[in-house]
């Protein structure tokens, strides 16, 4: 019942999001057809605007868009005038999804063990070293890491291709660049969770009952310690799956991340709205999935 309500709640939320972004976009000066070079004549400009219904009042444009959208048509892109918004998303989303999933796997696969061990070996050199690296991965931004990795592994060592998308090897550098920051976040959450859990009563009880340290750590502590990571993984996954402007530009990856920035720069109204909605849906769905996972992991959480 809880989840049905949540899903039903999506509908008004998406309506609000779409109408808000529609209005905000129109507030920005300049339109899709304002280039350095003026259209050949005012008449040409008028016809151009009329062709894409930009001459109508905003509420009417929104109504038209909404009606089309409900029929599954998100319109023609105003920058890529031979492509529909759906086409562009269909081309770019799988790429961003696979890169995002890879980066997610990397973030969790690296972050959880690092956080786990730095917590267990608290105060030892493993902890200091690990925490330092974690801090570094959070502080150094992708636009520094990416070119650095490309320089070392592509230009100097020639192990990996420097950019582009299509072969499995080409995915390695972007995956690491995109995932590193999140790996750091995950490691910190895991370390904090683990540290706190290890100090709690039930762990003392478990130890007192004579369970092996291994069993205490894995069977009892881990389950609870991983909760912050689980709740973080929802927004993280949504963030990763919708692509990253920085990583996609550095490695020239044909995902949708670049469009999120470029489409608003070029005032490509239909594409911006399409992407905003996509991001909103992904975020909401991911949060829903996290709530589901909570129910499974923590016996104290119950939904009616």
């Amino acid at each position: 019942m809880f989840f049905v309500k949540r899903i039903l709640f999506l509908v008004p939320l998406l309506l609000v999001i779409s109408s808000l972004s529609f209005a905000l976009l129109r507030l920005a000066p300049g339109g899709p057809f304002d280039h350095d070079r003026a259209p050949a004549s005012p008449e040409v400009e008028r016809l151009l605007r009329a062709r894409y219904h930009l001459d109508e009042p905003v509420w009417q444009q929104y109504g038209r868009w909404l009606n089309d959208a409900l029929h599954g048509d998100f319109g023609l892109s105003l920058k890529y005038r031979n492509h529909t918004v759906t086409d562009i998303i269909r081309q770019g989303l799988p790429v961003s999804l696979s890169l995002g999933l890879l980066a997610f796997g990397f973030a969790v696969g690296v972050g959880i063990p690092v956080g786990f061990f730095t917590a267990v070996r608290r105060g030892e050199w493993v902890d200091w070293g690990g925490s330092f690296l974690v801090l570094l991965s959070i502080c150094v931004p992708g636009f520094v890491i990416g070119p650095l990795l490309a320089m070392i592994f592509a230009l100097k060592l020639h192990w990996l291709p420097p950019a582009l998308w299509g072969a499995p090897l080409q995915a390695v550098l972007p995956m690491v660049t995109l995932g590193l920051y999140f790996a750091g976040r995950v490691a910190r959450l895991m370390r904090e969770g683990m540290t706190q859990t290890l100090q709690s009563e039930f762990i003392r009880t478990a130890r007192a009952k004579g369970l092996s340290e291994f069993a205490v750590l894995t069977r009892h502590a881990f389950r609870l310690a991983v909760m912050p990571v689980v709740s973080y993984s929802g927004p993280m996954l949504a963030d990763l799956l919708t692509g990253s402007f920085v990583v996609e530009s550095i490695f020239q990856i044909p995902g949708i991340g670049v469009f999120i920035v470029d489409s608003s720069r070029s005032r490509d109204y239909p594409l911006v709205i399409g992407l905003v909605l996509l991001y909103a849906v992904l975020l909401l769905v991911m949060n829903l999935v996290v709530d589901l996972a909570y129910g499974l992991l923590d016996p104290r959480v119950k939904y009616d």
Partner: protein
Amino acid sequence: MPVLLNALGKLPGAFSFLPLAAVLALAMLVAGCRPEPPADLTVINGPDPGSLDPLLVTGIEELRAVLPLFEGLTRPDPATGRALPGLAERWEISPDGRHYTFHLRTNAAWSTGGPITSADLVYSWRRILEPTNACQYVNLMYPLHGAEAYAAGQLKDFAQVGVRAPDAHTVEATLDNPCPWFLDLCAFQTLSVVPRAAIERDGDQWIMRHPPFSGAYELEYWRISDRVRLRRNERYWDAANTRSRIVDLLVMSSPATALNLYEDHQVDVILDKPLVPTELLPVLAKTPDYHTFPMLGSYFVRINVTRPPLNDPRVRRALALTVDKPRLTQRIAPTCEPADHIVPGATANYLRGEGQHRDPELARRLLAEAGFPGGKGFPKLSYLADSSGGGGGRMNERVAVELQDTWRRELGIEIEIRSLEKKVAIVAQRTLDYDLSRSSWIGDYNDPSTFLDLFTKANGNNRTGWSHPEYERLMRKAAGEADLGKRALMLRDAETLLVRDEAPIIPLWFESGFTLNSPTRVEGMFGNVLDVHPLNAIRRIPSPATK
């Protein structure tokens, strides 16, 4: 390690989605990687083309991608950029320069088969002029008799427009005035021949539905923000001289990435200066791969003459006369040539007159005459510098800082820099909501009028509020003049009036063309003033090992 493995093995249920996610990601990756044959030639072309339809393209990266796909009556010479026979194998021009008769090749064919006829050409030109198509480059067609009236919807009968097809292989064009660049114009991408049946069948998305092509290449696929892949059109009349079979035009947004790929030998050619890091230009200039050449482009400052005190020509001249253009160019655009004129020296049919010089003494005198001795009482002006992305944005701001410093030092006046996002800046410029504004212009064809027409009263790209009866008269007279010598004199006088006497603009430098390609790896690359590089002439030189 065993601890870790065990721990992972005993992960709670919800985490079993992890391996699943990994498998899914790999599967998608593999599915996304259809094995493709490598290209015979890989070129970094720049930003994403918005379209590949000759009617819609306006950006340089779009025009470059369209050139190999569709051909017009003429096509550009790879070395000089001037018009060579294209779909027309020969032509006659009447003595008054107003009537052209083109004879189409009998072996001109679409990539899908079937002859290209004069009716295809008339359709293609009509499509540009059709008012509802709102072609942004329609003004290129205006030399054609009746074209402007038809495009504006005033003339309804297309038969009265100056293009006819008396038979399947002849096209007759009638112009209002002699037009020395008309043959070059026929090679321009907008005027190329497009397939009527496919366009009428597939509408907005025809280019993506495997239409017939009239050029040296056909479109294999176009993946947005990745690449445009071209395959040699075997039915092209000159296919024997198309030197590369598969060509990739890569989309690239980061200059550093472009250079990485080039250094890693994954691409053969980088076109365009914004595609290599500006800071590295001096280093690259020392390599044999670096090629630079004059082209038809100007970087200049627009002055809004509707705002006092800029409505006073003496004030505008004072601003212009103090700028040290050689120094500024050397510091910010070292490959370019400092400009005292708006028309680049390499332009055809061009005679150079007196331009703007540097004379700070005269500048101070003019400013004093205008009522601001030593800059006293001069209002604070703003300088609009758009951030047109990446290196370009920083360059615009660096120019602004240099000018700010010059004018403070030489004239005692203060300028405030106003940095705006590109689209916002364009609107500010169009609506004359600025004092001084960074500008540039790339010529559409090889003639001074592509620059000088900008500052006529009615031109939408004037954007200075400036107009002058003598300038209008000279430009009108030049347009009707058949004698190229006399015409050049009139245009010279017009330019002198514009830059020396009235100064609604301050030219700073002439743009230079740039390509990065190794002379030992690639052949068929040339520099020319139009900055066109027809792909059919270019090929990668096979390395001895793979020969």
